[in-house]
């Protein structure tokens, strides 16, 4: 009997278990998935928790219910990976031998990386919404907040779901407008990048959103420390942005297992071939989703596309055949713009998001890079798709792992 071990039962790991249980010969392969936690969160839903649009119960289910029959779930913390002996060491001291290892340990916020972020003001005037706890603490704060300077802030790239901070700013505009207190709130968006939009066609198509919603942009701001007492964030160049309420996206980092195992980059991401998803650590170790260092967006849609390609490559690897360099960086995301509307973007390593129709060329029904109510309904419907289609690895109709150029206006 051979062993395939998956580390992490989040979006990517669960999808891999669901794919592989259907493809691998059960008399030859035993699949084990390791995760220390009990809850599977629908992370895209965290964006809606602070505004009370989603309730806590809308975004959580148990990990167990998505682990397919025939896959063994081990609920233990991972200590390290010993690539030389093909072994995963668990916190309990138990060892798991593997023939193939798939790392799907994701990325998480590391608020301790910036001085002054954690401390007396954390969850008092400084919040994140990338964690369940943070999103709920922020919801409670927003219920009674009287207004003032709201600063939405990205510490540094890369982050999970790079559009979520902007969506938060858009939804905040709607939220305060609906509460009849928009005139009491000043919204500022602070980014380490050169602007809220960094790609040419997005900048042209979307800059109006910031103006219409009266959101001020502070670009090129790399935070050095946060002064909670005086309510300001300070960058390395000495510039300051004052806040009454700071919603920050802390530094995102990969799992510390990588550091303990002696591989992983400065941010604990796994060095991975961006087209085959085989790691450069060892040929029998693969990686998928947010834990890799590939220059794709850290997002569920990316993990979904990767899962189809990685499944094929695992089968090729088992057969001793050459892997296919098929992952093209494809991502597909709805972007909430507030007031019941959303955008849809579809892009990959090579092609930036452009206008057009999706998924059917010339027909749609979804419009790319253009606000619509239908896109907003698409975003809300996606929660059902996530639990019922994505995690069990059911094929999504008409949506291919590789990006399609059809129906897009590149010029």
């Amino acid at each position, binding site marked *: 009997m051979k062993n395939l071990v998956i580390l992490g039962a989040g979006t990517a790991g669960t999808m891999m278990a669901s794919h592989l249980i259907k493809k691998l010969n059960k008399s030859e392969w035993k699949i084990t998935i390791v995760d220390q936690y009990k809850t599977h969160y629908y992370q895209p839903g965290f964006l809606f928790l602070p505004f009370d649009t989603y309730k806590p119960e809308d975004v959580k289910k148990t990990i167990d219910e998505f682990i397919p029959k025939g896959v063994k779930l081990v609920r233990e913390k991972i200590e390290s990976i010993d690539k030389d002996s093909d072994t995963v060491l668990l916190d309990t001291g138990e060892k798991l031998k593997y023939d193939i290892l798939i790392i799907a340990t994701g990325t998480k916020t590391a608020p301790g990386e910036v001085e002054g972020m954690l401390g007396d003001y954390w969850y008092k005037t400084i919040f994140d919404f990338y964690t369940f706890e943070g999103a709920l603490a922020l919801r409670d704060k927003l219920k009674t907040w009287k207004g003032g300077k709201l600063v939405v802030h990205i510490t*540094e*790239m890369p982050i999970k779901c790079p559009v979520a901070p902007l969506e938060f700013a858009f939804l905040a505009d709607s939220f305060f407008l609906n509460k009849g207190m928009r005139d009491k709130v000043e919204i500022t968006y602070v980014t380490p990048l050169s602007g809220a939009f960094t790609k040419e066609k997005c900048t042209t198509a979307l800059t109006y959103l910031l103006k219409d919603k009266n959101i001020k942009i502070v670009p090129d701001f790399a935070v050095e420390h946060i002064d909670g007492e005086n309510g300001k964030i300070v960058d390395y160049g000495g510039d300051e942005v004052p806040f009454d309420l700071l919603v920050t996206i802390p530094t995102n980092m990969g799992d510390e297992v990588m550091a303990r195992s002696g591989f992983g980059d400065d941010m604990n991401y796994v060095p991975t071939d961006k087209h085959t998803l085989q790691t450069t650590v060892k040929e029998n170790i693969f990686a998928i989703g947010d834990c890799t260092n590939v220059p794709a967006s850290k997002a569920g849609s990316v993990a979904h596309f990767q899962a189809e390609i990685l499944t094929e490559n695992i089968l090729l690897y088992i057969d001793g055949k050459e892997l296919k360099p098929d992952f093209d960086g494809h991502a597909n995301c709805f972007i909430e713009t507030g007031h019941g509307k959303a955008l849809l973007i579809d892009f990959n390593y090579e092609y930036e998001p452009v206008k057009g129709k999706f998924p059917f060329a010339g027909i749609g029904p979804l419009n790319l890079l253009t606000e619509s109510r239908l896109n907003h309904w698409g975003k809300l419907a996606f929660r059902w798709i996530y639990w019922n289609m994505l995690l069990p690895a059911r094929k999504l109709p008409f949506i291919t792992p590789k990006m399609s150029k059809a129906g897009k206006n590149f010029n």
Partner: protein
Amino acid sequence: MEKVYAGKSVSVDSNGYLTDLSQWNKEIAIEIGKEEGIEEVTPKHFEVLAYLQEQHKKDIALTIRGVGKSGIVDIKELYALFPKGPLKISSKMAGIPRPKSCI
């Protein structure tokens, strides 16, 4: 589009970033530095540029924190070398693309 730096015509994007790293040389970096208000390009600047180019060739997304952990400079020194948007300016001088998000 094309732009002439140090007497050499190179292809650049709409923000003036080189689109082909093989066209890069040190004189070009010095001229871009001048445009960005860096009067003197020191060996330390070039060490950072070389690091960025190496990371770019390995397809690794650049972060200020990553440069800070590179062992070449810490983040404060990076700011001192490339004031006002260090990654943006150093990337331009290194002849690699501007740091981008997905939109």
